[in-house]
């Protein structure tokens, strides 16, 4: 019954969109995505978006940085070429550790921040030269759009339109898309 149509329902206010999304979901409609000019707080649980794990990613990258920094400094300063600098201990990592704290910290931050930022870009699909996929240029200005696919729902596009029109939208449009 699905004929691969996508329905875009536009609202002129974030609160209207949130309300509408709640109503539509209550009727068992699956919302594919929401486009907005700024984060609409509270939309994530309504349309079934789980909390991102990027913070864990950052921690793992940072720990990698910590290990690399310590390994590197152990090799340079202790193993490969120990130097006597003002009588500071140079024969074991543990004894020399206080002097290694700043670089270890900086390198962990470097890896944690950049590792997370790169993962964020890749997961988001935001990379230099990628085409924009927002359905209407106004969604980056002052409009908020709910996107629904008939293929993902038990209803036809007409039924979806009927349900959406009850939520006082600003504008609605239906498009064919390639499956």
């Amino acid at each position, binding site marked *: 019954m699905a004929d691969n149509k996508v329905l875009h329902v536009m609202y002129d206010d974030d*609160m209207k969109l949130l309300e509408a999304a709640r109503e539509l979901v209550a009727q068992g409609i699956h919302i594919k*995505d*929401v*486009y*907005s*000019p*700024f*984060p*609409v*707080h509270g939309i*994530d649980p309504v*349309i079934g*978006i789980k*909390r*991102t794990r*990027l*913070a864990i990613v*950052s921690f793992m990258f*940072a720990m990698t940085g910590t290990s690399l920094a310590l390994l*590197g*400094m152990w090799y*340079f*300063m202790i193993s*490969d*070429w120990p*130097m006597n*600098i003002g009588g*500071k201990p140079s024969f074991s990592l543990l004894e*020399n550790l206080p*002097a290694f704290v*700043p*670089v270890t*910290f*900086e*390198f962990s*931050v*470097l890896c*944690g*921040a*950049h590792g*997370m*930022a790169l993962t*964020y870009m890749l*997961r*988001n*699909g*935001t*990379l*230099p*030269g990628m*085409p*924009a*996929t*927002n359905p209407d*240029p*106004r*969604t*980056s*200005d*002052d409009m908020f759009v709910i996107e629904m696919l008939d293929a993902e729902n038990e209803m036809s596009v007409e039924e979806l339109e009927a349900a959406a029109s009850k939520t006082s939208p600003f504008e609605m449009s239906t498009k064919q898309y390639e499956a």
Partner: protein
Amino acid sequence: MQQEAAIREPLILGNKSYKDITDDVVGPIVGPAPKSWKILITISSLVALYGIGCILYLIGTGIGVWGLNKTVGWAWDITNFVWWVGIGHAGTLISAVLLLFRQKWRMAINRSAEAMTIFAVIMAAIFPGIHMGRIWVGYWVFPLPNQFGSLWVNFNSPLLWDVFAISTYFSVSLVFWYIGLIPDFATIRDRMTKPLAKKIYGILSFGWSGRAKQWSRFEEVSLVLAGIATPLVFSVHSIVSMDFATAVIPGWHTTIFPPYFVSGAVFSGFAMVQTLLLVMRKVMKLEDYIHVRHVEYMNIVIIVTGSIVGVAYLTELFISWYSGVEYESYAFINRFSGPYATSYWIMMTCNVISPQLFWFRKIRRSLVATFALSIVVNIGMWFERYVIIVTSLHRDYNPSSWGEFNATSIDVGVFIGTLGIFLTLFLLFTRYFPVLALNELKSILKSSGDSQKAVQNQESK
């Protein structure tokens, strides 16, 4: 939705709608450049060119063209380095620390303050770079395998810690800034009509579409970056202070240096933010977004950090006497009564006395007074670094090797030049980049806009 008390002044004035915010910020980018901008960029780029000329002359001839000698081997160069890095700290403080504290007023100023951070750190990095003399072997600061045998850089040295701190600080600030810019570039891309400009902003916006999941990730990434940028910013100036504090030079070898330098950095940074933004809000017509409330909050930060700096000066002075170390005592007596006493008293007046004027509400909320005092603080903080560095170096343990430092025209030229380069970059930023964080401002419009306050006041009556 977040609520704010009705009696608080709104952060965004003038009954704006979401569209008005976009128009106010994107409008100047789409339209032609104003005349005042053209005049300013011409002047600043001429100054920048002069500075670049001085730098090239210095690289071609050697660092002897600075007023350095064998007693004072570091002077204006390291002074300028510390001054510029310090200025950078305000941007990170605004965007990271105030984000963690959920301070909404940061949203109008964080974008430009972060731009200032990035440009200031670039200016700072110039100085140790050209002080190397042979800048083309600058890569020797990294631990690279080399042809001279197994000789590695010294990881016990604060100077090397600084290499890691500054490069981490610069690159993390840049990424933090750019991640915030992506959605706003998308807004410009969607409104731009000129094909070439639309294409450029399209590339800059990385195909951002504003999907719910993207925003959810965006907020998480901003929060985590703020979380790690906060200890980073404190570590950077602590490490800068250790460049001095770990040396056994009288007047430097003190444990008070890290907190003292960090608060000094924030102090000078906020002063520079005030200097730049008070001009920018006028030229770019952003008076509704950056207004007295923002200026007052920043002035409060200036009083707090300025007072910490004042306490640190007095503590240093007291400890130099109380320590009973004659070299340490002499370093301080020499500071306030020796050949550089003028610099010392400029520093004391500008940094300890002048910010205390902000205790008066009238002065704290006056834009003219704030602008004047912000420049005074900038001057004072430059002299602070000059005093710490030059007075400690020029007379230490051995009187036969005492000397004096006198700046040459190249010292002055390079410093003025970095001011020019900095301003040129900042002006280019204000012309082509969204100077306010659009997506963040729109999210507080309802809780702290004029119309919302009016509704709240109506209800309470």
